[in-house]
């Protein structure tokens, strides 16, 4: 039983990996995010496989999948749904929007207006939506993968820091390496491959896996380490404002999920370090000394500067 869930998770990783070639780490991070009941922000240029990743994940995990393409004229009701008057029944009937799905791909979230963005983000935060006074729960599990083009593109509304914080992780996919790209070019259409794939696990099994994340053991030295990371980010003037307690909680949850994904019943510092960049790079801002440094460099500095507690 115990190994069953983990076997299924491994299978899912292999399956998605056969669709998105050479991106196993990103796939693992995405799955970690899902297990930790967080939401994922993928920031990359168009055409890097963001949509494919979301689609493959949904398919492999047997989740009900909806894609919402964000545009500047998208309205909150287009996401959440609206009550429509039906003449036959002489009543307003709620027509649920695309958000009532288990895995949502919010494509190019920064193209929509802040009002629409916040409608989605509130739903993400609460796990429920309130429309015309009635609160409706969202399905379980509920996982949002938002994609965002890098902010310098024209006609976008970059997510403010407070909204970025709602995402547990932010990752980049990046270009595939030569070998993976070759395989991609040689192989058949990925959509067809995807359609043929069996389902790796049921939503119930996924929920069970999610429930087991909280049971992953965390030893005091590991908490010391996480606290040391948080403290350093707050004390060093390389960063403007340190990591929030929410970031710390997220880091721990993600590390637990990562450990579970790697069949460990306890969290190691390596788990924390593996998820560190994904969890904090969008929450960390360079201080006056390190304005030119990229988010990756900043995270790396934090990682190398903090020693493991003895």
């Amino acid at each position, binding site marked *: 039983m115990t190994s069953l869930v983990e076997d299924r998770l491994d299978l899912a990783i292999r399956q998605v990996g056969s669709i998105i070639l050479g991106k196993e780490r990103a796939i693992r991070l995405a799955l970690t995010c899902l297990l930790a009941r967080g939401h994922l922000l993928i920031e990359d240029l168009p055409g890097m496989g963001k949509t494919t990743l979301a689609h493959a994940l949904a398919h492999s995990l047997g989740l009900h999948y909806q894609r919402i393409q964000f545009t500047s004229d998208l309205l909150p009701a287009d996401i959440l749904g609206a009550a429509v008057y039906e003449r036959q029944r002489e009543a307003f009937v709620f027509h649920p929007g695309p958000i009532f799905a288990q895995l949502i791909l919010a494509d190019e979230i920064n193209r929509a207006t802040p009002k629409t963005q916040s409608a989605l983000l509130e739903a993400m935060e609460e796990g429920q939506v309130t429309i015309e006074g009635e609160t409706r729960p969202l399905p379980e599990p509920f996982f949002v993968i938002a994609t965002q083009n890098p902010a310098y593109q024209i006609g976008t509304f970059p997510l403010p820091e407070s909204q970025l914080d709602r995402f547990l992780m932010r990752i980049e996919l990046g270009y595939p390496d030569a070998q993976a790209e070759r395989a991609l070019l040689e192989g058949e259409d990925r959509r067809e491959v995807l359609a043929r794939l069996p389902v790796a696990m049921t939503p119930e099994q996924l929920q069970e896996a999610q429930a087991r994340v909280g049971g992953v053991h965390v030893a005091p*030295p590991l908490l010391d380490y996480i606290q040391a990371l948080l403290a350093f980010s707050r004390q060093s003037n390389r960063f403007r404002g340190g990591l929030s307690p929410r970031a710390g909680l997220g880091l721990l949850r993600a590390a637990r999920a990562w450990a579970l994904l790697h069949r460990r*019943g*306890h969290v190691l510092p390596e788990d924390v*370090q593996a998820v560190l960049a994904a969890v904090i790079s969008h929450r960390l801002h360079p*201080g006056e000394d390190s304005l030119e440094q990229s988010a990756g460099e900043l995270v790396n500095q934090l990682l190398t500067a*903090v*020693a493991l507690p003895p």
Partner: protein
Amino acid sequence: MKLWNRKQRPKRQAPSAPPVEPLTLPALLWLLAALLLAVVPHAWELPVWLTVAFYGVAGWRGMIALRDRRLPPRGLVLVVAVLAGGGVLIDFRTLFGRDAGVALLVAMTACKLLETRGLRDGVVLVFLGYLLVMSNLLYSQEILMVAYLFGVVLTMLAAQVMIHRQHAGFKALAPLWLTGKMALRAIPVMLILFLLFPRIPGPLWGLPRDAYKGRTGLSEEMMPGTVSELSKSDEVAFRARFAGPVPPPDQLYWRGPVLWNFDGRRWSSGDRAPRSTPVPFTPEGEALEYTVILEPSNRIWLFALDLPAILPPQSGMTPSFQLLRQQPINEVYRYQMRSYPRYRTGGLEAAERNRGLWLPRSGNPRARELAAEWLARPLQPAAMVDAALALFREQAFYYTLNPPLLGSNSVDEFLFRTRQGFCEHYASAFVFLMRAAGVPARVVTGYQGGERNTFGDYLIVRQSDAHAWAEVWLEGRGWVRVDPTAAVAPNRIQEGLYAAVADAEDLPFLIRRGGDSAWLRQLAMGWDSLNNSWNEWVLAYGPDRQKEFLSGLGFGPVDWADMTVAMTVALGVLGLLVAGLRLRNQGSRDPVARAWERFCARLARRGLARDAHEGPLAFAERVAINRPELAESARAIGSLYALLRYGSGFSAEGIRQLQRLVREFRV
């Protein structure tokens, strides 16, 4: 390798600047702050132009750094350096000595600032800064100064920390905290070195002569006006602590230079060379035991109550009972004394008698007439003393700080015309009269009285207590002290200067005893008490005090070799203590961590050091890649350690296994 091949070395390429690790802005700002603070006390001694220039240059350097501008060209810095050196030379007419040396140091530090780019320049500046800090001690060693310099040193240390750990990302005042903690930890070592480092008598190194100038104090000569000028100074001459109760004021005559020679206007010493044993006399009554803590005077005089019976180390006594030290007193000096306030001295040698009667051939005729009149009566010597004192008491003599000026016949003018004078006038006239009347007499200068400080229960003797009195030689009693001032102004002796002079309002606050604002006086006394402790325990901590301290701890007589041993032992014990504490901390840590550390240390010796942030699995993996033959055991140790450290549940078996694996691990 081939040193002889020097000529064949390829010619130097176009000069390219050597790679310099630049100073970061925070490091530079800390350094500037520390240097600015170090120069603040010098502002009182430096020429104004130099102070202004230093702060100007420092500000300029700060602006360059803040605005990210270029440093001035090397040529300009050179010109500034030459101008500054020239300025010092013109101002002081030398480049040597204390004042010019310090000025030059300040000027060159400013120039160095203008070419400070990299880390190395920063280090050089830090050491220049420490030199600047120390140079302040050439001017003052008072508590406030030392406390201030301690603060400057902390800032300098902080700058040093910033320079060497430029990228540690310290925030705001964090380096100051760090150096504060470092300084606190250094205190035990500092105390041991201070208390036990063998002190040698006399200064360790010579200072330029101008380092001791400008001390106020008694002078070798006495003219009308010398003592009264001194009386306006509230500087402390010395402090004295009595073993028993403080004697009454009429016994508090602190003996200084004894003056024999008179040229009609000026009294000068003419004393004989000192001997290395106390001059014998017949004491009557109880001895007074006390300690004197003498402020630096740049003189060799030691002061003691009449009459001193012992000698401090490395000092001698003249036949006139004056104590002299071998070297000038340039630092606070503390010595034990014993005096007998009641005494009889022996007979008078012919040569001494002659000197005690010697007068210039002419001058002051009316005084001589008066003395001749007494001789003709005839009066006994003791009666003549009384007659002279009666003259001062009964005629309209005034005791004043600002007497009228006197001409060439100063004694006559004072005795018969102006009749206003300070103690030197009375002493001088009295001795003149005695000598003219055939009684051997001499002038004694020194201090009289002193103010009791109830906080520390000691006596403060200020320059304002400077005094001059007379001694006459009487058959059967020897030298007898006669204070003509006491006849004119008994208050001077009993209550001090403030009570005695009419024009006391000119005097500085500290001299005006029992005057206004009692609480302010209390405060001043408390402060003085603190200064006295500082003097006794820090500044006067010389070889004698050190021996005293060690014998107080129960050691017998000690020499410098014993002291070195004691110091080494104390430092060793301290080191062991620290090491023991650390070991105990380590010993109390769990065996898992110790085994892991052993494993890491073994690999580190082979050049495979674990990074501080590297987790156990990651490290084992790196070992496996670098040393494939160790892969299996390293992975086993890494994963077992990870399980024991971060896993749930405690397993004694697991710990034993880890210990065994580490023991068997061979690099």
